[in-house]
């Protein structure tokens, strides 16, 4: 009993110690602030620059950032939100809690074609199917070819994951009204559909499928961190759907100028050199010095829908997927 009491009091002590207000509070997702994620390095670099105190408040994932804003409304504690992806931008804007960033988006990469005045992209990646080149010599060269083949595929559930929603848009973009037939065809050689990214990816790594849905940047991790070169992303001729991760300033922030500085910092060459090798996504500006493997990654053409289009049709597409893929 005494030990329990002692533990309790230690706990209370540490908790109360931790509660000191920072100059800039950033809502983000958990893996961003993990020790091996971009969070700690970015914090250090930005704090050295501004002479201020930055604090991350991490929730489970991108969707949870949005949900937290919805729940807290005007009482949120964020100055900046970081880690919403473009698919969520419409809903996030609809909360009325986002302040225009007022930054020049000129230096951003051409292919992003970025004109949004509320959100600033800080990294991006293309959804892509990853394969093991030591097993597959001639990978599929188009989405149609993959779907018409009998190669085994694992992907993520669009009801519970971002990559799953990405594939949903990809199929819709390539097949249009024929999407139901495509899903039906794909389901005949789908191994399984998982709740989230890691289940699918670890099933793939244990050899349970020829292809897994992931990002075009995935091979970079295996090369840089593990020295493994056999994992490749398949380049599809129809083009790929992108996932763009975004940051924004909140309307309720008391420190908008500092928030703007932070967004500016996020797209600076210094931050952009940190993010790709910690978050395993692509930089949003050109001319960043990165490990050579980033030059070998596939560079697909970008297709897909605007965030507005995706927002209005998402439910309809989900229903379509649900009924055709269940066959």
């Amino acid at each position, binding site marked *: 009993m005494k030990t329990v009491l002692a533990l309790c009091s230690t706990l209370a002590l540490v908790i109360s110690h931790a509660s000191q207000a920072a100059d800039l509070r950033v809502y983000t997702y958990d893996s961003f602030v993990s020790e*091996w994620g971009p969070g700690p390095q970015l914090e250090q670099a930005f704090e050295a620059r501004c002479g201020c105190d930055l604090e991350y408040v991490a929730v489970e994932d991108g969707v949870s950032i949005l949900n937290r804003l919805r729940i807290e409304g005007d009482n949120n504690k964020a100055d900046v939100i970081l880690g919403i992806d473009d698919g969520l931008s419409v809903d996030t804007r609809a909360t009325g809690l986002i302040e225009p960033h007022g930054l020049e988006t000129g230096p951003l990469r051409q292919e992003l074609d970025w004109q949004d005045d509320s959100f600033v992209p800080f990294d991006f990646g293309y959804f892509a199917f990853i394969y093991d080149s030591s097993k597959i010599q001639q990978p599929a060269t188009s989405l149609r070819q993959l779907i018409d083949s009998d190669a085994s595929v694992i992907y993520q559930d669009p009801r519970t994951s971002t990559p799953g929603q990405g594939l949903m848009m990809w199929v819709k973009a390539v097949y249009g009204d024929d999407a139901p037939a495509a899903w039906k065809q794909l389901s005949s050689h789908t191994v399984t559909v998982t709740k989230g990214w890691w289940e699918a990816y670890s099933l793939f790594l244990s050899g349970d499928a020829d292809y897994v849905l992931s990002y075009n940047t995935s091979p970079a991790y295996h090369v840089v961190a593990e020295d493994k070169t056999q994992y490749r992303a398949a380049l599809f001729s129809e083009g790929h759907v992108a996932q763009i991760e975004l940051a924004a300033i909140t309307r309720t922030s008391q420190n908008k100028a500092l928030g703007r500085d932070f967004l500016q910092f996020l797209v600076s060459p210094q931050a952009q050199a940190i993010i790709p090798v910690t978050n395993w996504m692509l930089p949003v500006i050109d001319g960043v010095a990165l490990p050579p493997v980033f030059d070998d990654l596939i560079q697909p053409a970008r297709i897909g829908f605007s965030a507005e289009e995706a927002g209005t049709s998402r439910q309809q597409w989900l229903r379509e997927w649900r009924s055709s893929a269940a066959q």
Partner: protein
Amino acid sequence: MAQQRRAVNAPMLFAGLLALALSLSVTVLAFYGLIGFESAGLDTSLLSDGYFHAVVWFSIKQAALSAGLALLLAWPVARALYYSPRLWGRQGFLSLCVLSFVMPTLILITGLVALLGRQGMISPWLGPDWNLYGLPGILIAHVYLNLPFAVRVQLLQMQHIPDSSWKLAAQLKLGHWQRLRLIEWPALRAGMLQLFGFVFVLCFNSFAVVLALGGGPRATTLEVAIYQALKYDFNIPEALTLAWTQLLIAGGLFVLLNRMGGNQWLGVDSTRQRWTPRPGAVMQQVHRIVYGMAALTLLLPLLALLPGVLQVDLARFDWFAIARPALITLIIATLAGSGALVLAYAMLLPLRFAHIRGRSALALLLDWLSTHALVAPAMVVSVGLYILLLPRLDLDHWGILFVILLNLVLIVPYAVQQLRPRLLQFDHQYDRLVRSLKLGLRARLRIEWPYMRRACVTSFALILLLAMGDVAIFSIFGSSDWTTLPWLIYSYASTYRMGESSVASLLLLLICALVVWLFEHVEKGARDA
């Protein structure tokens, strides 16, 4: 006399009702939080949706099959353990059983795929048509998780068959079948129904495993729909409708099975078993084979983890990064576990009084209330409470306390389930005596303790492990300052670090194993002393 009885009961009854109120208030507040948010109503259009029907039907089907299979397959194993107390590694096997029950999804999926997947070690022997994904995968995973638990419960129930029954059976020269029907089955029957309900609810709420091994959207449970509604669509009316559906189905089944099971009649029992019938030589061999196969089945997915671990450069592995989360996990689980045990014990007091006075309808209600946290969807409870508290409290700093509180409340039903039969049996045997001796609370507890010690220790070990494995609650209330070991495992896995994730998983399992071993060792030592 009546005055005397009330004097003893009143504080205990009060403590019990307080415990019930605490557990109930968490659920009620959570629903209040959801309903109160933008005053959300119900989305009744869902009830006529074909997709919704398919999801509900599939949830019920897979849960019923999983629970049925787990119980059925557990039976021969429990019998083998009962009839052969001197099996090699028996104690270790029983510890392994607790471990399998709390196996993290990540380990289970990786392990099963390494064995039975397309490149699995066992797959070549299963024929060309073998496919893990689909209903087989779901059933295998659920049986793996729940069979060991069922074995332990069944074994415990069989161990409570009084020696006198066996002596009588020997005198009457009952045959094998007669003993099964007249002695074993009555001891198991009531417990079996409750156990079925329990495992059914666990499988009914299953989610990540069902999706990963289910093979596609055909295999969708209600829990997936709840997750989607609450998280991705933030559609609270829909989530509420789904949550009520789940409460009605799972909760209704629970009541039904408890009613059908009735009160357990186990007869007079001593705390120690002295006499077990010895089966014939052939049966002994059968028991040994059954036991060996069960042990192998439980061990294989764990061993399948090793190749992944060996790929990691263990010398360069950051052990310190794991040590702190491991410690935090232990602290959180210890706090939640001890709280839950006390709460469960207190909660069972009103139920015991109701039983003693023969008020079975009240007993059924109290029973349901004390285990209701099992059927209330965990996701709904945590999110509801989160919505309620977030605007009112600094959850970024106090969230960790709610991780403990919610874990505590959610593991209470497991403790209740383990303690209840034993306590009711105690009352049945000793309540009159205790009352006629006019014993006070202290003296009463002193008599109860030796009788309850074993059940307390084993259920504490179980709930401790359950709390140690939590990620669902932590994902909502936790913060990166308090990363727990299971959360770290998922953080590794979600950032390509599958190898590190395997190492952390193995470490978590080792800690769990150590905890179970320690408890059972200490308990056994105390019993033998």
